[in-house]
């Protein structure tokens, strides 16, 4: 397997960044990690994952959809779309890598979202296998192997070297482009690290969480469950869970008058917000209970019903660590399962 010494990662990043834009997870001043555009000298974070998911690369928090120029009664429609430049996202975890295939089911379904597809076509995802999963991790619940991540190419660390494996043609092209820096390496130590990680994964506090009681056929069983009241009681409706979630993709479309034209943009929205479904004739989801229920029913019942059983969660654990009232999808699943 081709590898590079961890000490030489700076050289590797420099080579990638000389050909296309490179993003890596790096430390923030507050000690958390975020994806940043690579600059010489920048170090890969030691944190397990970034606060924000990697969905921004394909579905940014805000983006322009169309511009208008208005003169008197006349309107000019201006298409602002440009072909995206090639870019590489390095160090994506297995959970976030799976989130892209979930987002694909929404944005690449007919009619294809060309804004999303443009970025998807030009982005290369280089994943990084986990070696030290956190207590909030439960990707295994959704059939994700943190030690063998998806993505175009996958990287594996044995503590001294990073090994590369192509998962598809795009990933092979990426590896070919950096092959001058790679050498053939022995994977004995890597195999050891992988089996050790698998043991850790098995012993994680949420390792027993299962999806077997969820899926597209559970609408009637769970929609009217008397658990929703208690579960949603403290929900602030702040939407933090939806913003850090790698699979949440609800969005708003709004217009902004720049003073010299109108910009129509889309931005992330949240089904947890009180005016998400509000319209002139009323609001079908008036209470936080209904809004809270919508989010979890969508991930655990509605989405799998439309997508061959695939759930709208990858077990990244971000909502577990970020919800200000400590409510999360794990608690919801456990409560609903109790008879």
């Amino acid at each position, binding site marked *: 397997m081709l590898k590079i010494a961890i000490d030489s990662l700076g050289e590797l990043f420099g080579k990638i960044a000389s050909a296309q834009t490179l993003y890596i997870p790096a430390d923030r001043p507050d000690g958390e990690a975020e994806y940043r555009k690579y600059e010489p000298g920048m170090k890969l974070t030691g944190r397990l994952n970034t606060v924000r998911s990697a969905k921004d690369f394909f579905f940014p928090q805000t983006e322009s959809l169309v511009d208008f120029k208005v003169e008197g009664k006349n*309107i000019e429609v201006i298409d602002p779309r440009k072909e995206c430049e090639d870019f590489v996202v390095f160090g994506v975890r297995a959970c976030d890598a799976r989130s892209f295939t979930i987002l694909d089911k929404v944005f690449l379904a007919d009619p294809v979202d060309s804004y999303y597809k443009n970025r998807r076509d030009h982005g290369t995802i280089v994943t990084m296998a986990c070696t030290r999963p956190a207590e909030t991790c439960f990707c295994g619940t959704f059939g994700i192997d943190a030690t063998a991540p998806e993505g175009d190419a996958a990287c594996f660390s044995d503590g001294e070297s990073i090994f590369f494996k192509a998962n598809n043609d795009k990933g092979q092209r990426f590896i070919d482009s950096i092959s001058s820096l790679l050498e053939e390496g022995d994977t004995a130590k890597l195999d050891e690290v992988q089996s050790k990680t698998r043991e850790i994964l098995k012993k994680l506090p949420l390792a027993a969480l299962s999806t077997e009681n969820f899926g597209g056929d559970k609408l009637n069983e769970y929609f009217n469950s008397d658990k929703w009241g208690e579960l949603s009681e403290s929900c602030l409706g702040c939407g933090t869970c939806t913003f850090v979630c790698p699979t949440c993709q609800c*969005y708003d479309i709004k217009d902004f008058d720049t003073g010299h034209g109108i910009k129509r943009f889309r931005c992330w929205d949240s089904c947890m917000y009180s005016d998400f479904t509000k319209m002139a004739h009323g609001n079908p989801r008036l209470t936080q209970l209904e809004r809270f229920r919508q989010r979890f029913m969508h991930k655990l019942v509605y989405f799998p019903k439309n997508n061959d059983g695939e759930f709208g969660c990858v077990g990244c654990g971000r909502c577990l660590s970020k919800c200000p009232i400590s409510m999360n999808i794990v608690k919801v699943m456990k409560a609903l399962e109790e008879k």
Partner: protein
Amino acid sequence: MNSIETLIPKIGVVTDIRQDTPDVKTFRVVSPEGGKLFEHMPGQCAMLSVPGVGEGMFSITSSPTNKEFMEFSIKKCGCLTGWLHAMDVGQQITVRGPYGNHFPVETELKGRDLLFIAGGIGLAPLRSVINYVRDKRENYGSIQVIYGSRSKDDLVDYQEILDEWMNDPGVEVDLTIDNPQEGWDGHVGFVPNYVKELAPSTDKTVLVCGPPIMIKFTLAGLKELGFTDTQVYTTMELRMKCAVGKCGRCNIGNKYVCKDGPVFRFDELGELPDEY
């Protein structure tokens, strides 16, 4: 494959504005070169927008058999609709569509006796079907329209009903208003009660649209008369942004009203959570 160029709208020119009721106007829209912006089927919708104000989903009230223009009957009830009501002829707006499914005029409705039940602005989406089946009369059985509004002045398309539908020998029109009014010698009473009084034949296929409360009581009345969920269709309205099943706003259960609807049969609605 279609693409979401569909989020980038076309320009439409408003060539005629008709004041239907005190708060409903019907707008005629064509492309800047003249003619329709796109073809549609009865029951489908389009996103209309005024750049800088907003965008909203409206049913296309004109029939697809009209080859010259599209019409939208819009009630003034918010920011965008307020702006639309304030515009003059010649104004350009933006239009994208058509969106959603449509009433099954070429399949399940073909050859059937049809009963249309509408309340208030609920006539707007049904007008498209009514004029479609009137123009293709040989493909359908009898046509009955039961339509009611708060008052005579609130009847949308009243002139067209009087001049065209009531003079069409193949169409029975039964109008009602909520309260007695000077100059009105027709029926007085709520639509659901009027439907029960008229007791239409249960052989008919029903298309109903109106305020949620009217639909609820009408459906209950129809069931008392012996109709089943599988012979009644309605068209729904929820908040929408993208109109292509991606923004998440009009999601009910595993359905998106913008693309899986807006037309649903009541047995299909019965399988969805009661969140509309």
